[in-house]
């Protein structure tokens, strides 16, 4: 009986914790976003402030993984349009508890995204920014 009790006790105590973090892309310089002035800011200034846009500079591994599993609708734009630039940082966060008889895992994915549209003179016509990673704990 001692062996059985010992087995039961050891299984009950065999609690495991899983924590995973993933980050892809470069941080979007949120402090520079208010400096964007439609009709005035040029494409050269945008590239100077925010660096190379997503899709041209990095492979976006996490995004490819999520798109393959139909978890996200896909990249913001399929083609590198000359009049749209996208800057994106994607974060994935995994937290879980693994017991012998019960396992629970939460997986959160969020992105900071800046999209900038340009007119025919390569000046900003309009833009949108969302700091979605703030929602991750």
């Amino acid at each position, binding site marked *: 009986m001692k062996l059985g009790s010992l087995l039961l006790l050891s299984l009950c105590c065999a609690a495991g914790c899983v924590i995973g973090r993933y980050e892809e892309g470069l941080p979007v310089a949120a402090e520079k976003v208010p400096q964007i002035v439609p009709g005035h800011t040029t494409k050269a200034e945008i590239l100077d402030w925010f660096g190379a846009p997503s899709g041209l500079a990095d492979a976006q591994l996490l995004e490819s993984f999520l798109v393959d599993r139909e978890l996200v609708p896909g990249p913001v734009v399929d083609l590198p349009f000359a009049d749209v630039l996208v800057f994106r940082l994607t974060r994935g966060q995994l937290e879980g508890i693994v017991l*012998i008889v019960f396992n629970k*895992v939460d997986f959160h994915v969020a992105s900071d995204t800046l999209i900038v549209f340009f007119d025919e003179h390569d000046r900003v016509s309009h833009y949108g920014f969302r700091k979605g990673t703030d929602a991750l704990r």
Partner: protein
Amino acid sequence: MRCARAFAAALALALAPGCTIVRTYVGNELPQPTDAQLVPGKTTKADVLRDLGPPDRLVRQYEGEVFVYAYIRRNLASFDLSEPVFTRLRVFSYTKTQEKSDRLVVLFDRAGVLTAVGFRRGTEQLDPF
């Protein structure tokens, strides 16, 4: 006798049921768009970008652009009963997967003025655990 009891205890534990819950959240919750926010023939692309932020997907059509916003949730619950050491026999298995999303589609004409809006909140239909 002691050995038999220990074996029975080990067997019972090995056949103990395993329950797994996986919850996946992708993106940010979409705010419910109000009628005043999205007015066909009046609201512009700049207004939408200011109020709702950048779209998760931009689609270009002949008539104009389409902004797609999405918040996706996937819940998986499974219950397994198996002997994992000797025979690996799965006695019982139950898996339930639910994927629901909130989606907002905003259509613009070539001038960048809103022509139509589609919104569907699906995440409320997820079964609670």
